[in-house]
């Protein structure tokens, strides 16, 4: 295998690995919106898509772009079944906040990182709550969105471990930024 061929394979893999964060986001949306419940609907499904959004927004914002977040949000809206655009706007607002406070979020170690993610989830859930309140022009019940927030925060630790693994295997070695 000559150098040109190797470079070609590397370039094609590189272009594919750029899509990994976005595809992970889409897969997380599909997974969390499967209409199957182990708790018989007692608790809502977590917002798993927020984990790759948060993670790659901090680690590689050039791979998790606003357009990618928009696409993930649209799939969440389609799969979730609610009013169109609500989750999309909430995700984009959350992305904007994380992007502006990126240094503060990225420097959090250990439990602080979980709290950082919980803050991001809080922004998403609060945005959704207020958009829904405006959409229907009534104050919705608070407990379902609080349950959603709690479930999402709980799932961050295994979710972050998984996306970290994916990053290390598929994205990290090909990272161009030092």
């Amino acid at each position, binding site marked *: 295998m000559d150098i040109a061929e190797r470079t070609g394979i590397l370039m094609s893999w590189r272009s594919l690995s750029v899509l990994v964060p976005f595809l992970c986001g889409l897969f997380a949306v599909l997974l969390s919106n499967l209409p199957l419940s182990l708790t018989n*609907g007692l608790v809502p499904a977590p917002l798993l898509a927020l984990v790759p959004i948060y993670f790659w927004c901090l680690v590689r914002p050039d791979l998790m772009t606003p357009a990618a977040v928009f696409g993930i949000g649209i799939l969440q809206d389609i799969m979730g079944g609610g009013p*169109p655009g609500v989750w999309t706007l909430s995700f984009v607002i959350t992305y904007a906040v994380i992007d502006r406070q990126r240094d503060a979020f990225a420097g959090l170690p250990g439990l602080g990182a979980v709290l950082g993610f919980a803050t991001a989830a809080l922004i998403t859930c609060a945005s959704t709550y207020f958009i829904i309140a405006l*959409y229907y022009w009534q104050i919705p019940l608070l407990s379902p969105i609080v349950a959603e927030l709690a479930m999402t925060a709980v799932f961050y630790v295994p979710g972050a471990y998984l996306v970290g693994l994916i990053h290390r295997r598929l994205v990290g070695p090909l990272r161009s930024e030092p």
Partner: protein
Amino acid sequence: MANSTWKIARRSNAQLPLVIVMALAVVLVLLGKAQAGLFDRARMSLTDWMQPLLSVAHAPLVQFDRWVGSVDELFTVYQENLRLKDENARLRQWRNVAVVMQDRVARYQSLLHAVPDPGVDSVLARVIGRASRPFLETMILDAGSSHKIKPGQAVVDARGMIGRIYLAGSRTSWVILLTDLNSRIPVSISPGNRQAIMVGDNTAMPTLDTLSQIVTLRAGDQIVSSGDGGLLPPGLPIGTVVEQGGKYRVALLADASSSEDVEVLAFRKPPEELPSSLELPAVAAGLPPATATPPVITIAPEPPVTAKPVTPPAAQPTSPADQADEDR
């Protein structure tokens, strides 16, 4: 967590796309408000595509739910058995009463030549999925438009009404539950046949908005569908009135979380036709039917009568037919 593991990439310097994307997202919400069914086709295509997977994956989950749900019942099985025996004996008595009353009603209806209730076709469907999002309570059925299921039709189980069809794909359909934030059902409260709207608010018990301010409700009053609007058949059992915090709510008879097989009622009230002219009140009373444009009657003063010499009119044929008659 993992944040400290990797060096962080350069801040994305593309601020303009974020602004554009946020504006697009706002436009999407506004567009969705104007046209709520924006994503309906995509939703149904996805659900239809996933239907085989959902059907396969749902069965073990149901077994798991049953197993988990029955663990705590092991400790109360004896008391539960006694309670059920007692309830069964009482229900048998009520069944006998109901059979006698049913015969009596049928006899009265035949004596009065009462118009029978319209027959309602139904489709039996299996629940293959449930979605519990913060502001959406739905279930997914394994029957769709290929089974003549249409949006708006009522979904019931053996105990009562669960919800309405919200979206109908070719092989699957989404049900919006009575507890959902978007659910509005016209209901009738008996005794008294009082009308109200049952409004879902994401709690287990929807609220009641009575149409009249002077209506007083009591706990235990029965709620059935009123049939207003012609989409739902009248008289579907829904629940009973309970008072909670000064508001009237409905304790639903059906438990959507445990329903596995449901019926979709294909009820469509035929549009009321105009009565024929023979059925109009005037004709029924023996009077001549009114014309669409009554003739204008003008009363003119009669001319004065004067004596004129009578002369035979000149024969002037006016038409070829008249001419032919004269030739004959």
